[in-house]
């Protein structure tokens, strides 16, 4: 457990993806079975024991420490698990080497009754060091947030056998912790585990971003085009198990199973198939904005009220398999015909096919991209993120092959904002001020002032980063820890052109507005801050969107 704790500790501080991969792979290589398998399960979120409540942890520490000292400490540290891990008194009777293994912890937690839990956790805490206690408490309370996705952990495990990560994704649904067969195969000690999963994930095909010049070189007649919808890309799969029962699953683009969150979509998969599509929220036959979908994603428990208020919908792009037939090597045009036929047979209002955009040449498509509403998207135009251009004869190839698929996004929204605060980055960027808070003008009681509307830490080139960093260091007016306030007056300051994908209302921001996917588009050294945009500009953009896509939101419209 102490080794696993050290890994979690390193991962929690390490910002770099490659460094995280190395740390995980190194741990998996050095740690024996079954310990490493349980660690992999913990990192991929595959552990399913019932979590301990914070109240129980508080109870344990209250029995062992002075309440005044606990309260001073908790106040200073600000995190319950961490405070308890650090304050936990040493048991003088404890022999060294009595730290529990992760295997023991996981296996005990899945069988132990609620009544015995506190005593057990206390015994484990007695045997661990500070980091070990922290990791144990995070694990048992279900608060293991260390910035590692299941995909990243699977990529790390794949590297043990020099396999592509998608190989692990394909096997994953058929595997079980502690994954002895997986490690044996990766280390060349056994055959590849056979997958008899009736509803496996298939690595998705992805598109390259296109500029108009990319398309100009292509013959429009070879391609089909459809809308790129602003939801979440999913794979909906159903198949029969050995008893002939239909098993249905929903996967995210990275292969994580999200079935539990969308029981309403699973219900429509009544025939064996594998559909690639977009998950959307549909109300009164209109696609809702991403903001609405996000509201459903943010809810933890899936209640019938939630299902009714945020009805999920699958807009299908592609058909990868039907019954036992793998369709991925067929041409796209053929797969689409099969998809259309399947959807007709399913005959369910919760699924439809993403319509094609009719065009004869690239200028037709340019016009459609500029005005999706008049080009067939109609009332759903605001949920269009761009256009997908796909070769008619292209097979479905996992990964991001260059050529067969292009995504041509709509132009982002753009505003000019003023740099207000800069914060130092992490890792490679720890000597650079690379996280920027920017604001726009607004009339307040005290007069014209800048209100922060967002934060961005990418979009600029390395050279621009050096320039902004220099500007920040030379124009600092105040410091708060790693944050510097930089000059932001009407006549002096730095104007940033910020691009973003959307806006939503937010109670967490002083401005009342939050941006989606903001990034620095350009540095406007030429522009005086006084000429930057105003909050009213953002508000009017937001109001337009609300009126366009959510006419009925807000009135208990179930």
């Amino acid at each position, binding site marked *: 457990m102490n080794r696993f704790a050290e890994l979690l500790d390193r991962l929690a*501080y390490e910002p770099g993806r490659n460094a995280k991969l190395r740390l995980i792979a190194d741990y998996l290589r050095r740690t024996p079975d079954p310990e490493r398998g349980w660690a992999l399960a913990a990192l991929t979120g595959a552990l399913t024991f019932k979590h301990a409540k914070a109240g129980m942890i508080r109870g344990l520490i209250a029995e062992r420490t002075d309440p005044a000292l606990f309260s*001073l400490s908790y106040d200073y*540290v600000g*995190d319950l698990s961490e405070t308890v891990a650090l304050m936990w008194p040493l048991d003088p009777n404890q022999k060294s080497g009595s730290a529990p293994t992760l295997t023991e912890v996981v296996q005990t937690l899945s069988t132990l009754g609620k009544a015995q839990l506190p005593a057990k956790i206390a015994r484990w805490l007695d045997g661990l060091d500070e980091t070990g206690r922290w990791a144990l408490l995070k694990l048992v309370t279900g608060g293991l947030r260390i910035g590692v996705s299941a995909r990243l952990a699977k990529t790390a495990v794949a590297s043990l056998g020099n396999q592509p990560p998608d190989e692990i994704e394909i096997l994953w649904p058929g595997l079980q912790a502690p994954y002895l067969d997986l490690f044996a195969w990766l280390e060349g000690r056994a055959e590849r585990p056979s997958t008899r999963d009736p509803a496996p994930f298939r690595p998705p095909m992805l598109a390259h971003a296109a500029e108009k010049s990319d398309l100009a070189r292509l013959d429009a007649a070879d391609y089909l085009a459809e809308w790129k919808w602003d939801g979440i890309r999913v794979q909906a799969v159903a198949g029969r198990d050995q008893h002939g029962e239909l098993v249905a699953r929903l996967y995210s683009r990275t292969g994580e199973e999200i079935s539990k969150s969308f029981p309403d979509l699973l219900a429509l998969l009544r025939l064996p198939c594998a559909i690639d599509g977009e998950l959307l929220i549909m109300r009164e036959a209109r696609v809702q904005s991403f903001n609405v979908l996000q509201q459903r994603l943010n809810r933890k428990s899936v209640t019938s009220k939630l299902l009714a208020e945020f009805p999920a919908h699958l807009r299908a792009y592609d058909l990868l398999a039907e019954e036992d037939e793998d369709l991925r090597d067929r041409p796209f045009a053929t797969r689409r015909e099969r998809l259309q036929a399947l959807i007709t047979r399913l005959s369910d209002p919760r699924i439809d096919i993403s319509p094609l955009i009719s065009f004869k040449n690239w200028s037709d498509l340019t016009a459609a991209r500029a005005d999706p509403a008049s080009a067939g998207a109609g009332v759903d135009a605001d949920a269009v993120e761009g256009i997908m251009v796909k070769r008619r004869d292209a097979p479905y190839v996992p990964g991001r092959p260059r050529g067969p698929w292009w995504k041509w996004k709509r132009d982002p929204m753009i505003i000019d904002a003023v740099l207000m605060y800069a914060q130092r980055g992490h890792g*490679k960027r720890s000597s650079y001020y690379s996280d920027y808070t920017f604001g726009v003008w607004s009339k307040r009681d005290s007069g014209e002032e800048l209100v922060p509307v967002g934060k961005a830490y990418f979009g600029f080139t390395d050279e621009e980063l050096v320039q902004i960093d220099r500007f920040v260091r030379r124009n600092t007016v105040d410091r708060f820890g790693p944050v510097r306030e930089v000059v932001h007056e009407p006549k002096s300051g730095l104007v940033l052109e910020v691009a973003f994908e959307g806006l939503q209302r937010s109670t967490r921001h002083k401005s009342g507005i939050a941006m989606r996917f903001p990034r620095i588009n350009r540095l406007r050294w030429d522009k005086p801050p006084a000429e930057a945009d105003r909050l009213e500009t953002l508000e009017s953009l937001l109001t337009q969107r609300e009126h366009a896509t959510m006419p009925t939101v807000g009135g208990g419209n179930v």
Partner: protein
Amino acid sequence: MRPEDILVPTPSGVCCKPGGFHIDPTRPVEKALITHGHSDHARAGHGAVLATQETLDIMRLRYGDNFAGSIQAVRYGEIVKLGGATASFHPAGHVLGSAQIRVECNGLRVVASGDYKNVADPTCTQFELVPCDVFITEATFGLPVFRHHDAAGEIGKLLRSVELFLERAHLVGAYSLGKAQRVIAMLRAAGHDQPIYIHGAMETITRYYQSRTIDLGRVELVRGANKAELCGRIVICPPSAISDLWSRRFPDPVVAFASGWMRVRARARQRGVTLPLVISDHADWDGLTATITATGASEVWVTHGQEDALLHWCRAKSLKARPLDIVGYGDEEDAAAQAEAEA
């Protein structure tokens, strides 16, 4: 006689009226007894300074030859008569030459501990327990969450990281006096035999440690090294240099920081550290409370840090306890940064 008749806390430090001296004064005084060389305790400009030879040497290296009107070196355990009081210096285990100062007057014993730690450190004399009636303690880490555990384990963590990320430099922030040399010595004790690189600001002190026969192995200056040479190396620098333009010369550095503050995650994250190393030259909570108990003191004065929790603990143990509000003690680094800002 009351303790307050021997030592009076003043805003500029503790003053011994019968002996006519101050301990670690923060403003220039006639006669100063200095516990150790960190700049928040040892300042230039006093009339006479009494300290260990090492502390005097360190002050000279930092402030130049004329840092005081006159100086007197005092050995550990030597008793010095000053006016109506006697004073002696005893190892504090904090940094090279650091001392606790014991003052006795009419049979009443007061120990001003300065900064101290009661764990092993290969670069300085081990902390000595000095029985007393009144114990003046620091409280830098005076909260029960500060448990420094095993410094050797932290060195192991650093070495495992060096082994894993061989193509990167490991940049270790450490205070220039004491921590830097302790980290180097511990790396040597753990078997690391590669050259270790240091920032120019710690060169003088490090060479001084080496001259006092503390074996630090091969220590090179970053200044003379090229980028390729620094791959896979451990580089020790003042904490402020991590976020400085200076750090850009390193190949994709892993940023570490050796400090007791690294025990608390929020502090480590705020610093932008990716490899926090809990290595402290101050006593942790267990060290503070164990030392207070062992001195047998019935009264405890708390100078600087997180006083509240320690005062509460003392009172719960029926010890008389009071905070001393002395302005100007704190982190060695804060004092250095302040000096930098003033310069």
